């Protein structure tokens, strides 16, 4: 902090960063945000695997249709995450704060604890909304660049490969958090993707 004493703007930025770190520590935001990130990015990728497989098995060979379906699904997942987490997290946080207020017999809304609690709600809601949306858009990328590849089948294949890669990456992320074997964790999440692809193939095409 001493390095920034001569520059007021940087000092303010540094102060805000310190506040954010402190709010995050008080409200335990980091751990919850990590959990939501992994869980919802996982959801996002698996849902897009569903969209990809559905379109592929149904014989859709127009990348624009897959992109539109995938994007609509991603947006819905993002909104669902954002809204759902905001509502549940704010309800839980308000209850926690009220309980703490009963213990201290004071109004804590304008204290660091109250601010940390509101900060946690916004952060967790953003993570919960953005994680599935971004993960879904990421795995759809090969379809956006469909013109670069010779066939739409290749785009499908690359998207599925990217989905599996993202799932493995999420597993590695979880493995690093747990401090256990990252490859084992990566394999666990990868298997989920493979199972959903395999099951969709086994189901075959719906009649009609």
């Amino acid at each position, binding site marked *: 902090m001493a390095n920034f004493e001569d520059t007021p703007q940087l000092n303010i930025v540094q102060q805000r960063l310190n506040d954010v770190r*402190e709010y995050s*520590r008080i409200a335990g935001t980091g751990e919850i945000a990590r959990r939501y990130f992994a869980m919802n990015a996982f959801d996002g990728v698996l849902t897009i695997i569903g969209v990809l497989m559905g379109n592929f098995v149904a014989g859709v060979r127009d990348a624009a249709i897959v992109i539109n379906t995938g994007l609509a699904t991603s947006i819905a997942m993002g909104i669902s995450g954002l809204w759902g987490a905001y509502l549940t997290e704010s309800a839980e946080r308000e209850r926690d704060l009220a309980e*703490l207020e009963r*213990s*201290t017999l*004071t109004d*804590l809304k*304008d204290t*660091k*604890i109250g601010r940390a609690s509101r900060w946690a709600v916004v952060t967790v809601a953003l993570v919960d909304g953005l994680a599935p949306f971004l993960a879904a858009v990421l795995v759809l990328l090969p379809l956006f660049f469909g013109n670069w590849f010779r066939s739409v089948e290749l785009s499908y294949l690359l998207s599925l490969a990217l989905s599996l890669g993202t799932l493995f990456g999420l597993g590695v992320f979880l493995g690093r958090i747990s401090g256990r074997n990252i490859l084992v964790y990566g394999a666990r999440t990868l298997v989920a993707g493979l199972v959903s692809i395999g099951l969709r193939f086994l189901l075959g095409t719906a009649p009609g």
Partner: protein
Amino acid sequence: MGNLRRLVLDVLKPLEPSIVELSQVLADLDGVDGVNISIYEIDRRVENAKITIEGHNVRYPDVVRLIEQNGGAVHSIDEVAAGKVLIEDVVTAQD
């Protein structure tokens, strides 16, 4: 008005922010030379702290405001010392 040199407060505070952070922000106040916080009772969500602040010009309203901003509530003022020199509590025959 004489300078406040020592303030001993009984404070009920949530477990977070911790006494490490609280002692540091209190020590940063103007006129404060040093802070000691000791916990004498701990509960599931809150703890009772004895906060001792010494300085050459401790400002009581600033101290209370900072404690409250950190979620604490001052239950009582257990000891104060003010003036040009710090006077310790004297043991008398009545004690």
